Structure formats: C-alpha cells, structure tokens
C-alpha cells in the first residue's frame, strides 16, 4: 500500500531517467505523449502507404496491381488505421503532452492509467496490423456493415481481427477519456477557471466526454458481432428475424460522435495557433467554447444521415436532415470566429499558421459537401460514390490532419526544444495543399459521374480515366510532402534553432516553462490571473528556473504495460479459439490489476 504522505521524503528527480526501460515504465505525461505521437505517426505512414497502393491500382482503368480481395483489405485497413490508429492517437499525443501544461498541473490525474491507455492502444494497433502477416487483414470496410461481416459471408480471420482489435482499442480510449476529464476538471492551477482555459483544453474536454459516452455503444455493437461469429447468436442474422439496421444504428450512433472526436481537438489546435500568429486574442472566446460544447451535444442527434439510403421513411429523414443542417451552424460560427481573429491582426505566416489557414480553407470545402449530404434527395445520389470519399478526405485530411500538423509545427519546439525548419515546413505545406486538392477534388466529379467507392477497378468506357489519374498524381504529391516533413525532423534534430521558453510569443501556460519542460513541469504552482497569462501584465506569478523546494515526481511502474499485455493475450487467445489462452490472459490481467492497485505509488 501507499507510503504515508507524512513519512514520504519528497525529492526532485535528480538524475534524468533514460534508457528503454525508463520509457516502458514511464508515467510522465510528456513521455507518454511522445510515445503516442511516434506510434500514431508510424501507423499514419502505414495507412498512407495503403492509400498510395489503392491510388496506384486506380491510376489507370482495369488496373492489375492488386486483386479485388487485396483491395478490400487495403481500403478497410486504410480507413480503420487512419481513424483509430492515426488521427485519434495523434490528438491523444497532444492531450497528453499539452493538457497538464496548459492547465498548470504537474501530471494527469492518474499517471499509471495513462501509461495503461498507451500500451493498450499500442497492443491493439499491433494486433490489428498483424492481420496482414496472416494474409487476413479486415476486409469489410471501416464501418463493417452487417451481414457482410457475418460468419457465413466472411468465414476467415479477417473480421475477427477487426472486431477484437477495435474492442481492445476501445478500452484504451475510454480509460484515457476518463483520465483527461478528471485531469481537466480537477487539476487546474489556482485561478485557472473554466472560462480561462485554453480553447485546446476546452475542445479536448468536450472530446473526452464524447469518447466516454460513444465508445460503449460501439463496444456493444462489436460484442454482438463477436457473439454472432463466435457463439452463433442471432443479432445480425436475418434468417432468425434479426435486423441488419441494428448494426448501422449502433455503429453510426457511435460513428457520428466519432467524427467530432476526430475534428474537435483540431479545432482546438487552430484556436491556439491563429491568435498567436495574428497577435490578437481569439475573437469571441466564449462563443467558440460554447459552439464546441454544442457540437459535442448535437453530434448525438445526426447519426441517421449516414443511413438515408436504407429507407428510414419521411419522418426520420426529415428530422435527421434538419439536425444535420443545424449542426453546421456552430461549426460555421467557429469559422467566422477564426477569420475574425485574423482580421486586423499582425499576421505572421509561419508554418503553423499556414497549416491553420489551410485547415480553415479545406474544412470549409469539406463542410460544404457535408451540408449537401444533409439533404436526402441529394444524398441518395451521392451515397456510396466517390463524392462521399471526397467529402471525408477534405474533412479528415484537409481538416483533421492539417490541423494536427499545425499543432506539430507549433508545439514541436516545446516538446523537443528545437524549431522545425521554416522553409521545409512551408514546402511541406505547399505540396500538401496541392496534393490534397489534386487528389480529392476530382473525386467529387468522379462520384457525381457515377463511380462507386470500394470497387477495385473501373472500365475506360466510364470516361473517368483522366480524373482518376490526376487524383493518383495528387495522392503521390500528398504522400511525398511527408518525406519533406520526415527530412525536416531529421535535419532539425541536429541543426534546428534552439527554442527558448516561448519561441512564437504564445499566450498560454505551456509557454511559461522551458522547452522541453522539466519533468515536474512547473517549479512552483502557477497562479493564473488571466485567460492569456503571458499577454497580460501580472497574468501569472513568477515561475523560477530552479524549484525553490524539492518536488515529488512519481516513479516508474511496469504493471500498466503488463495489464495491457494480459488484455492482448486475451485477444490473441480469442482469435486462436483457445480457451486456455483466453483464461490465461484474464488471469494475468486480474493479477496485474491487483499488483497495480497495491503497489506503493504516490502521485
């Protein structure tokens, strides 16, 4: 059990912890943030390569690079990887690294649970990706519609990998969600009232509430699918009276809030970047915050617009059409706030700012096609065509990824102490904007002209050869832009300019400490007197370089990773249909939880 607070000798972590073991056992939110970032970026590159193979196959009519079955696996894994293994955990990297710094805390509320979330995410991602090694990658699309996924139509291991992998990832997301809500609600520094919190922290808070409430829904949908496949239940069995729309309702009841899980953190990031590089406070801070909250709530009322084509009837169609149009309002409000923030500002077009502006432009385009989908008659023409593919890529690449890159360039100096090269950053941005538009804009037309998505090839008589080729060229330009980024990272490591505490002149708390921050974050607890503490006279107390008194830093522990390993064993056992391995995994998980609960660990 715990060492008593009185008997414990508080100490500053003297020698800097290093080595692989220190990373495996770390409970430092900053290190876990970096782990999330590196892992998610690796998965992002994998998902990107999958996309390039898809585009190479579609470059010419009657392509023969891959066969239909491989193609199915590629688009399924591309979607699943990008949503669950790239964008979500890239945001999580920022949640981890930035939230405690932005609210003036020394760590998250539950550092060990935080480590656990990361390891479960890593193991879930590896489990899902390992399917490629068995030639059995998931092949039912990223939303895995029933009953394509039933045992009768997908007898292989493909869907098993998908169900179990997503189930494991869900555990990581819910645990992290709870952790961050408690952190934001409870660990704010004195004076950091809710309406003084940075917008990124606010949007993260909304996102975590969505995670905590939306993931149980997909968990249940996946449990039904798992039981159907493993135990022969009838949830998605039409022959027994089951309704295939049950899956669609449960999936999209999760799936649409999931869209906001992907985009809200990014909206938070650009709300930090735009004021910094416009030298102006965010226009209408409170409105941006409230519209974010409103999006989080309204996101629960629009899911059936994914299902207009299933024939829900005029009443349901009208209701979901109206709610979908309504949710565009708080989103539009934010866009006007961002533009008004720049208006009359002293704009510095540094790389993070360029990505933030690119985000606004691309997200408007993606948003416009989104509003088009809200009208059922129009949607029926677009469902299952490349028009939808164009929409999601404008929102998720032009939106989420652009915003995340804005955050990467903005916070890189804080995380690694060096500023990424500006010229290369701008080149990355330019190639990316060109790549996105060249690759995804033709998809609108390809879709409207009738090319269905998820078909591994097309005939030249469709007359879409040129546009498909243009799209493929654009995809490779987009992919190539990341080579510039990777080179930039490598170059900056050796030659980058050293960053001071606040290289961009930011206003929020994370810029008050050194880059990278010390293990304990703040040498003294901040006293926050302003929403923009670094832009206001007496906005913040003095944060000395050297702590005036010893600070307790939590030690490392290996029980979180072992607990996560137990869960992985459980999933491996399930896919091997080995009850013994499943029971072993359960036993080991329970054992590790007990050791975790009773080990001496002081936050």
């Amino acid at each position, binding site marked *: 059990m715990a060492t008593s607070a009185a008997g414990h000798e508080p100490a500053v972590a003297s020698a800097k912890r290093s080595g692989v073991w220190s990373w495996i056992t770390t409970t430092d939110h900053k290190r876990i943030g970096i782990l999330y970032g590196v892992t998610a970026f690796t998965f992002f590159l994998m998902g990107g390569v999958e996309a390039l193979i898809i585009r190479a196959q579609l470059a010419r009519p009657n392509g023969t690079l891959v066969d239909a079955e491989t193609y199915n696996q590629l688009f399924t894994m591309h979607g699943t990887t990008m949503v669950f293994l790239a964008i979500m955990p890239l945001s999580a990297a920022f949640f981890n690294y930035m939230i405690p710094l932005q609210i003036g805390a020394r760590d998250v509320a539950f550092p060990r649970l935080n480590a656990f979330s990361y390891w479960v995410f890593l193991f879930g991602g590896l489990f899902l990706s390992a399917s490629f090694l068995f030639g059995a990658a998931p092949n039912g699309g990223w939303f895995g519609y029933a009953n394509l996924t039933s045992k009768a139509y997908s007898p292989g291991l493909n869907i098993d990998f998908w169900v179990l992998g997503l189930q494991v990832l869900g555990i990581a997301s819910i645990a992290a969600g709870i952790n961050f809500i408690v952190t934001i609600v*409870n660990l704010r520094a004195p004076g950091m009232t809710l309406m003084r919190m940075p917008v990124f922290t606010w949007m993260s808070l909304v996102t975590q509430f969505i995670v905590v409430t939306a993931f*149980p829904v997909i*968990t249940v949908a996946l449990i039904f699918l798992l*039981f159907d496949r493993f135990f022969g*239940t009838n949830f998605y069995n039409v022959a*027994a*009276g089951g309704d295939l729309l049950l899956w669609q309702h449960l999936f999209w009841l999760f799936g649409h809030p999931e869209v906001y899980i992907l985009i809200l953190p990014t909206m938070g990031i650009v709300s930090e970047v735009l004021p910094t590089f416009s030298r102006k406070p965010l226009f209408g801070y409170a409105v941006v915050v409230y519209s974010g909250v409103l999006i989080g709530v309204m996101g629960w009322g629009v899911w059936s617009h994914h299902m207009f084509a299933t024939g829900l009837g005029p009443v349901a169609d009208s209701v979901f059409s109206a709610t979908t149009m309504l949710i565009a309002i708080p989103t539009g409000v934010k866009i006007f706030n961002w533009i008004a923030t720049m208006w009359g500002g002293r704009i510095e077009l540094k790389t993070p700012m360029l990505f933030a502006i690119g985000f606004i432009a691309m997200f408007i385009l993606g948003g416009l096609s989104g509003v088009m989908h809200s009208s059922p008659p129009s949607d029926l023409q677009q469902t299952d065509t490349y028009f939808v593919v164009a929409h999601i890529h404008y929102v998720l690449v032009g939106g989420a990824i652009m915003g995340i890159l804005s955050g990467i360039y903005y916070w890189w100096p804080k995380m690694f102490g060096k500023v990424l090269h500006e010229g290369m950053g701008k080149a990355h941005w330019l190639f990316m904007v060109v790549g996105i538009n060249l690759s995804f804009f033709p998809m609108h037309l390809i879709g409207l002209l009738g090319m269905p998505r998820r078909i591994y090839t097309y005939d030249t008589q469709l007359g879409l050869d040129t546009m498909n080729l243009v799209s493929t060229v654009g995809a490779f330009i987009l992919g190539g832009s990341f080579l510039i980024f990777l080179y930039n990272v490598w170059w900056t490591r050796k030659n980058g300019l050293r960053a001071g505490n606040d290289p961009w002149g930011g206003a929020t708390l994370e810029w008050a400490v050194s880059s990278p921050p010390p293990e304990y974050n703040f040498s003294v607890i901040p006293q926050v007197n302003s929403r923009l503490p670094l832009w206001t006279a007496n906005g913040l107390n003095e944060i000395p370089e050297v702590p005036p008194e010893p600070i307790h830093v939590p030690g490392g522990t290996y029980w979180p990773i072992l607990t996560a390993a137990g869960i992985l064993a459980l999933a491996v056992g399930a896919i091997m249909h080995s009850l013994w391995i499943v029971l072993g995994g359960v036993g080991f998980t329970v054992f590790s939880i007990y050791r975790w609960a009773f080990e001496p660990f002081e936050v």
Partner: protein
Amino acid sequence: MTQAVAAHHTSTGLDNKKLAFWLFIGSECLLFGSLIATYLVYEGRSISGPTTHEILNIPVTSISTFDLLMSSLAMVLALAAVTRGDKLWSRVWLATTAGLGVVFLGFQAYEFVTFVHEGLTLQVNLFGSTFFTLTGFHGGHVLVGVIWLLTLFVRSLQGKLGPDKALNVEIAGLYWHFVDVVWIVIFTVVYLIQTSA
C-alpha cells in the same frame, strides 16, 4: 493508493478517484443502455423457439431481485461501519453484501440452466441471444463486484481498512449500487413488462 483525501487538493474539491468513477458509471450507462435498447427492439420478433412468457419465472426472479436489493442495504451499512472505524461490523456487512451477491449469482446460474433445459439457448432465437447477453453482462458485473467486495473484506481482516480508507469502500459501493439499479431496470423491462405475451 495513497491517502488522496488528505494529500491532494483538487480544483472542484471532488476526489479524483470518485469523479473518475462517476464518469465510468456514465460510460456504463451507455453500455447497458445499448444492450437494453437492443433487447427492446428485438422483443417479440423471434421467429421460433421459446418466448418470454413461456420461459420467465417472475416469482423466482423476484426473490433474487429482493436479495440484490438487500445487498445494497448491507453495502450502505458496511460503508457506515468502515467510516466509524467499527472493524467487526465492517467485516460482517462486507461479507453479507458479497454473500448476497453470490446468492444472486446462484439464482442466475439456476435460471440459466433451467432455461437451457427448456430449450432457450443463446442460438435458438432472438430472445435467447438478447436475453442471455443482457443478463449475462449484468451477471458479469455482479461477479466483478463480489470479487471487489471480497478483496475489501480481506483487507479488513488484515486490518488495512480503517476509516482513512472509507473512500475506497464508498467507490465500491457506488459500483455496487449502480449494478443494483441496472438490475431493477432489467427486471422491469425484461420480466415485468412482457409486451410479446
């Protein structure tokens, strides 16, 4: 864990663990909500096999429901005993709560075995699939609660469950009461209101 109560000041004054647990319960509401909603959507849509009114035995399940309700009372008394530092009654009430939980699980096992003998299995029809999944998940939650309570009981025997650890018992109690409340919903929706009858 450490004595978080004394050692840590939080922005809201709420304890971190307690707040986290409330959020977890919120998450669990959506889990059971989805399971119950599915049960309701599929109720009366089984094509073959036994249906609700042929199978469900309301008198027997009323007894197990009463048993689970009483366990919540025992839980309240356990927390009160731990808070006032009463070792003997802490142990008595913790053991009683866990014991009533075990009795409930016994009833459920008996019920499941009987139903299977009467031809209701996971596979036979939609009622079987939804009924066993919903009540099975609830039973799983009761099992976790029993293990948790027994752990607290052992800690009490070891003399490591003083009033300073009352919060740990309180959180276990939150979980236990939540599982109890879920059962009340399930009992009402599944057993008492049988629309297909």
